[in-house]
């Protein structure tokens, strides 16, 4: 019987692993700079734990010798590695010097996962690490190759305590080892690192660190700080902003700033935030650090105590992040509330630019609702007004919930002096409903067709008597189309009839339309659905008794002419209301036109 060895070890195909990392974990080969900076930063942090007065330095040198592939070295004055540590940490995938022995997470180190150095194989034929440990001993050299082989030797190089990594550029990656590119990438990924990062090219060197991060400024001059914040935002995001909101959060130990966008924000395509962890860029595409309603800002923040994901290109979603998000939301809300108190004109400008986002915020947060509701403009029959301005003109806050409905009734409402708000925009109806809920004394509500009809002037007793036959025939004629008719007096007098449709009615019409074209399987399902929402009337036709033609019609006794005319008013009113005609309504239009033409022809035959 074959005996199986229970103590086998996994074989690692290094090239395959590199391929996996480069194609599936890392976003691109340029991240090797980030990984090297991270390792250097962590080494310096480790050294400073025992030698606090050591000033960290990272020096990157790029050499372009003629006829040869470029080479790069990155040197740090961190803790270095002993020979046994080189064997242990550089040659074992997943073994990281930055994890505590008991498996707990470190708090000072950025890197945790022990695969960062491998990223260099995306750009380099081999990796050479020369290192001298703070613990003493000789300089050790480790040379690793992508085929999985490596060698460790004692090095003759005299180096200070620290580590130097040498890379030789792979064919096709030359652009990544140009001095300008290296400088740009260092600034991008590590610009906020606390240690000096120098890019050397022969005799010249340039600093990659970002100068004076505003939340580190030690001055009491508020104007200077504000200027620095704004210019910092312009450097980072390459655009100007309306304003800046300094951010702090205990959760995650976050400092930063949220910049108010100078253009209107989309409700769907959120602005991207730039997030650093311990000074190292994690992502410039973050959408999670700020609350969802903070669409009108984009932030740059540095967190000392949030965690990155394994690929280190996003923030790990945990309780710290959530708590941090809440605290940052408080900062932004406080900013708005302060603006309302102290700089109302600035807030008004912000409302103008970021109306959709601020509506979203007001719906989400009660305190902001109270702050913003009186400032938010609404489209009304009297033009664009705030709620206080509207209520100064009208006793009730009536609104319709679709733009189409607003278009239908606005001209008639205006002519009657009835104020109506267009609540067809995102969050508008919710805001108005909330206003009504919080202000018991206010008359607030959606205007349905019934209510709108009631708001128009009734006929006098005499007019009712005169129009009795017309009213009766109109009801009878349009009942098969489930359209209720009413006679009212309203302006403009040129309009003979107004067609109105409630939300439920609109759905019924759409259902009928779909049923007309569907086969029996789907038509039956829609028929069953109709049973769920049965309403007696789908729509309403308001006949305008002030219109001369309607008045004339009321004097006729010929029921056929009256019925034909009512059908034509119905179709005309529907078309004016942008309602597509169903097949039976198309037939109505055709037959009605023919009947009227026939009647005219007959009349002219009689009276040539």
């Amino acid at each position: 019987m074959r005996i199986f060895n229970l103590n086998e070890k996994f074989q690692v195909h290094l090239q395959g692993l590199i391929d996996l990392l480069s194609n599936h974990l890392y976003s691109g080969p340029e991240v090797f700079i980030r990984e090297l900076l991270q390792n250097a930063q962590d080494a310096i942090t480790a050294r400073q734990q025992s030698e606090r007065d050591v000033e960290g330095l990272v020096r990157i040198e790029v050499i372009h010798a003629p006829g040869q592939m470029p080479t790069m070295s990155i040197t740090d004055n961190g803790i270095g590695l002993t020979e046994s540590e080189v064997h242990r940490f550089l040659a074992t995938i997943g073994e990281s010097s930055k994890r505590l022995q008991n498996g707990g997470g470190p708090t000072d180190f950025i890197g945790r996962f022990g695969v960062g150095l491998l990223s260099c194989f995306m750009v380099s034929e081999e990796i050479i690490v020369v290192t001298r440990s703070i613990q003493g001993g000789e300089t050790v050299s480790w040379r690793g190759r992508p085929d999985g082989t490596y060698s460790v030797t004692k090095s003759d190089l005299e180096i200070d305590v620290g580590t130097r990594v040498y890379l030789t550029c792979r064919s096709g990656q030359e652009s990544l080892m140009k001095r300008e590119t290296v400088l740009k990438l260092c600034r991008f990924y590590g610009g906020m690192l606390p240690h000096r990062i120098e890019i050397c090219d022969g005799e010249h060197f340039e600093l990659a660190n970002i100068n004076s991060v505003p939340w580190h400024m030690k001055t009491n001059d508020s104007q200077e700080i504000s200027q620095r914040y704004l210019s910092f935002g312009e450097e980072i995001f390459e655009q100007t902003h309306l304003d800046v909101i300094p951010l702090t959060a205990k959760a995650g130990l976050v400092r930063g700033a949220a910049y108010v966008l100078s253009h209107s924000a989309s409700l769907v395509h959120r602005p991207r935030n730039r997030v650093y962890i311990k000074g190292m860029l994690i992502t410039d595409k973050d959408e999670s650090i700020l609350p969802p309603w903070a669409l009108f800002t984009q932030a740059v923040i540095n967190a000392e105590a949030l965690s990155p994901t394994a690929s280190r290109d996003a923030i790990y979603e945990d309780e710290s992040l959530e708590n941090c998000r809440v605290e940052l939301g408080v900062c932004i809300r406080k900013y708005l509330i302060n603006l309302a108190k102290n700089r109302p004109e600035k807030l008004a400008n912000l409302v103008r630019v970021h109306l959709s986002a601020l509506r979203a915020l007001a719906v989400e947060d009660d305190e902001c609702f109270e702050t913003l509701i009186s400032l938010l403009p609404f489209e009304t029959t009297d033009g664009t007004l705030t709620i206080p301005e509207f209520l100064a003109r009208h006793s009730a806050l009536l609104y319709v919930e679709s733009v189409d409905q607003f278009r239908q009734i606005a001209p008639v409402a205006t002519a009657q002096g009835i104020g109506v708000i267009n609540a067809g925009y995102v969050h508008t109806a919710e805001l108005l409903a909330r206003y009504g809920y919080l202000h018991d004394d206010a008359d607030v509500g959606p205007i349905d067709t019934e209510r709108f009809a009631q708001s128009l002037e009734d006929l006098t007793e005499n007019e009712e008597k005169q129009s009795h036959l017309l009213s009766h025939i109109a009801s009878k004629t349009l009942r098969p189309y489930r359209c209720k008719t009413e006679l009212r007096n309203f302006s403009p007098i040129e309009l003979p009839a107004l067609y109105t449709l409630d939300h439920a009615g609109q759905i019924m019409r759409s259902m009928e339309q779909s049923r007309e074209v569907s086969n029996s399987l789907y038509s039956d399902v829609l028929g069953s659905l109709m049973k769920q929402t049965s309403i007696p009337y789908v729509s309403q036709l308001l006949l305008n008794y002030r219109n001369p033609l309607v008045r004339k019609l009321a004097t006729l006794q010929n029921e056929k002419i009256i019925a034909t005319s009512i059908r034509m008013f119905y179709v005309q009113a529907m078309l004016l209301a942008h309602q597509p005609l169903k097949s039976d309504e198309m037939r109505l239009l055709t037959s009605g036109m023919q009947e009227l033409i026939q009647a005219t022809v007959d009349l002219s035959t009689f009276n040539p």
Partner: protein
Amino acid sequence: MATAENIEPDPGASYIDEIDALLAQAYDLPNSAAKIAILEQAIRIADTYNDIPLSYKCRQELVSAAALGGRPELVLIHFSWCVAKYDESPDSFDRDELYWRFKWFGIATNSFPTIQLPQVMNLLDDFKDRLQKSQLSPHPYLTTLARVYTDCGLLDELRDLLPRLALAARSHLSDCEACIDQLLIKMHLKLGQEDEALQALKELSDSGRVCVEVPLCSYPLFFNVWLNRGQSEVAAKHHKKTFAAICRNPKFLVPLSQHLEYLVAIEDWTKAAKAMRVGFDHWRNATSLRDRWYFLNELIPYLDKLTYRNTEFIRVQLPEDIPVPTQNGRCGVSVLRAWASSHRDEIGRQFDARNGNDHYSRRSKSLLPSPHIGTTEA
């Protein structure tokens, strides 16, 4: 950038320009009542000009917005029209775009008890036949069928379906892997297989698979399970992680209800009140009667608890179609409870009659009387 503000059409523009402008605005909006209204407007214009291709395109957008925004009746109405037009002229429209939405259509049929179960099954058979004729995997049909069986409590049928589902190959028309994982979790829970469900949740979590609904709507399924197993800290962690996002979309009325259930169980009255208010805020735009049943079913125990705490009135903004009187923004707890109970039972009865079982009435909740605790107003 197009916003929902710029919708007055240029008088010189053609109807096509007008529709394009509306579609551009809709694209920039989250799935919401406003987005749906804009798309309905675009459809009406296209219909007025009898522009079938444009009307079809707008309807497809509306079906997506409605399916993801909690409006199954609009899915049924407009998808039916699209199927009819596709069948008239299959070469004029994209088959896969239509068939992708068939899954949503199938689920939407289960939202209204007046749509009979044989009708639902016939529609799903139509989907199956279409896939077969196109030589496509039946996987999307089977997952939709699984959802219907799960919702209807048809456990025998669900058990029989599991092996068929496991064997069927995924296709490009199948839901994303995260959604399939969540479906399997729901199936396990429905079949009373808690351990298997927890294992599936762990695998989902370890896989890192996410989508709009997953794992946002996965964790609330387990609040009760964790509480019953003495893992209250796990429940608390996932409640905290998901509650805010759940509150933002009316489509998530069922997960919101699960949060309400959890909050009542841990006696967090402040947050429970918030969950109730959000539920009513969503009510207008969450038209599925199935979803409303779930919400009412968790509302009733909450209101019972308030009664036992001697709370007579609550501040709540009720939708217009709820016939419970409010005064000064408050309504009576017992009045609301009476309406909620009656409405829930009526919906439950209709669904049970349709499904031929007692799946809904068996799960209907109310609390037994418990001792007086104190007087508060929520």
